[in-house]
């Protein structure tokens, strides 16, 4: 019964993943005969590629900003919306809404909002007299990465709220009652009950968001295509450009291998850290 799935999966997932290893040892423009170059691509990537270093830095910054803000906003809104009332259910529905849109739609909507001349954000800023803050959000290499990160957070925070709400609803109400009896303030309740009890959910949210930010492509491609001057270029957009703009297929394959190793390393580290904090496993 499993045979059809296994054959498709082997042929179109496992086999390509293996052949990627082979491509990574080649110099190849995608058209002419590939040339075997051994580990040259890896050496070049790690020692002599300024663009790669810049993009890696971008991606790490992007990941940290998005993970920190998206996780804390998700938890904050979830603590506000844990109970099931008409208002909270309505707000959760609104917050979740962007999740169902495509990255391309979201990217293009925000391209309009950020538009330096006609965009909604700058029009609003100018209307309230803050002309100085009306910046060229996507067109200035100083701000583009942050502008894109902000959109990513707008896009996915609602999903994290819903995941957190599911987690927080599992916390026994007696714990809060006991804390109240002891006279704990709201902050103390959060620190001593909500935060430790929600740690497993936090682990999930952080891991998911991290992977999402290392795989980000569609949104960046729709908004800036990595520009200006590679200021918002992330790893996957770089791989895409290496292959389909620069026609260096072998080198792009090497980059994807690095990407995969990096994602695995980061998720492994996070799992270790969050598990030790959790205290359930050592």
């Amino acid at each position: 019964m499993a045979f059809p799935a296994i054959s498709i999966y082997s042929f179109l997932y496992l086999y390509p993943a293996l052949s990627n290893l082979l491509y990574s040892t080649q110099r190849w423009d995608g058209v002419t005969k590939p040339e075997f170059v051994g580990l040259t691509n890896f050496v070049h990537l790690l020692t002599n590629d300024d663009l790669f270093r810049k993009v890696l830095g971008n991606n790490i910054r992007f990941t940290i900003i998005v993970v920190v803000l998206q996780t804390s906003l998700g938890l904050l809104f979830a603590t506000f919306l844990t109970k099931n009332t008409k208002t909270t259910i309505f707000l959760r529905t609104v917050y979740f809404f962007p999740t169902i849109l495509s990255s391309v739609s979201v990217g293009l909507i925000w391209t309009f909002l950020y538009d330096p001349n006609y965009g909604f954000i700058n029009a609003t800023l100018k209307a309230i007299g803050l002309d100085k803050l009306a910046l060229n959000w996507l067109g200035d290499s100083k701000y583009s990465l942050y502008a894109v990160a902000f959109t990513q957070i707008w896009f996915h925070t609602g999903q994290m709220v819903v995941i957190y709400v599911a987690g927080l609803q599992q916390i026994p109400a007696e714990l809060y009652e006991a804390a109240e009896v002891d006279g704990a303030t709201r902050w103390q309740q959060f620190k001593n009950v909500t935060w430790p009890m929600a740690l497993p959910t936090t682990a999930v949210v952080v891991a998911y968001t991290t992977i999402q930010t290392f795989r980000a492509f569609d949104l960046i491609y729709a908004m800036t295509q990595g520009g200006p001057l590679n200021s918002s270029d992330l790893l996957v957009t770089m791989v895409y450009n290496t292959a389909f703009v620069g026609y260096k297929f072998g080198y792009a394959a090497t980059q994807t291998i690095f990407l995969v190793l990096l994602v695995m390393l980061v998720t492994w580290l996070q799992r270790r850290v969050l598990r030790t904090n959790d205290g359930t496993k050592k």
Partner: protein
Amino acid sequence: MIYKIFKNSMLTIFAAAILVPSSIVILGSFKSDVEIYTKPLALPLHWNLNNFRTLIATGSVWTPFKNSVFVAVFSVLITIFLASMVAFAIARSITITGKVLFAMFSIGLAIPGQVNIIPIFTLFTKLHLNNSLYGLILVNIALTLPISVFIISAFFRDLPKELFEVASIDGANQWRVYRSIAMPLARPAVGATSIFLFVICWNDLLYPLMLINELGKKTLPLTLIDFRGEFATSYSMLFTAIMVASIPMVIMYLLFQRSFIAGLTAGAVKG
């Protein structure tokens, strides 16, 4: 008191941050470009479907719409069919086979799909599956099989083993047990997974961008990207196209909200 003010203002700001851009797009699809620039949040001067008519008349959106429906529907149906059979085999097998199968598909969860960009492109070009909607369906199936197997087999594992055993004793073969017992029981899990997959396939840009360049084969996200260049300054056309691309999702979201949230959340939690 301070807490209340903080809470309510945060909740209102975030709700506005989502509702305002959404309203700009919805209202904008009834406006001219000038109206969008000058009064993005005002109600349109004329409520008419001229933008939609123009978009359909130029033919630039209807074909991609059909392509997207075709690719998403078949990708999801086939993936669910294949993945549920694997999940069933994993759940039913008491021998080592189940574990091996499960391990095999877990590898796919550990390796991000992006590792396959280059090899899929070269393989599909060799097989002349580029510029083909069938090619896209195949890519979608391969990429989403691991996560689907994972979610559905987690569901099967929780079902009592006796259910299947009784049926087997009564003489039903595996196929029968799968079709008449396992699948009907798994309907909620399968429904949520289907929606999760549908959203992925409907919204994907990377693989269509790589594999499709023939105009008649483009999907909606690709067409939207082209719009940015083609109607460089026409946000009214762009917003109308975004509406066309999003309406099916919005309708599904309003109809199947529970499965939607369950599906997209399960996808995140388990992936």
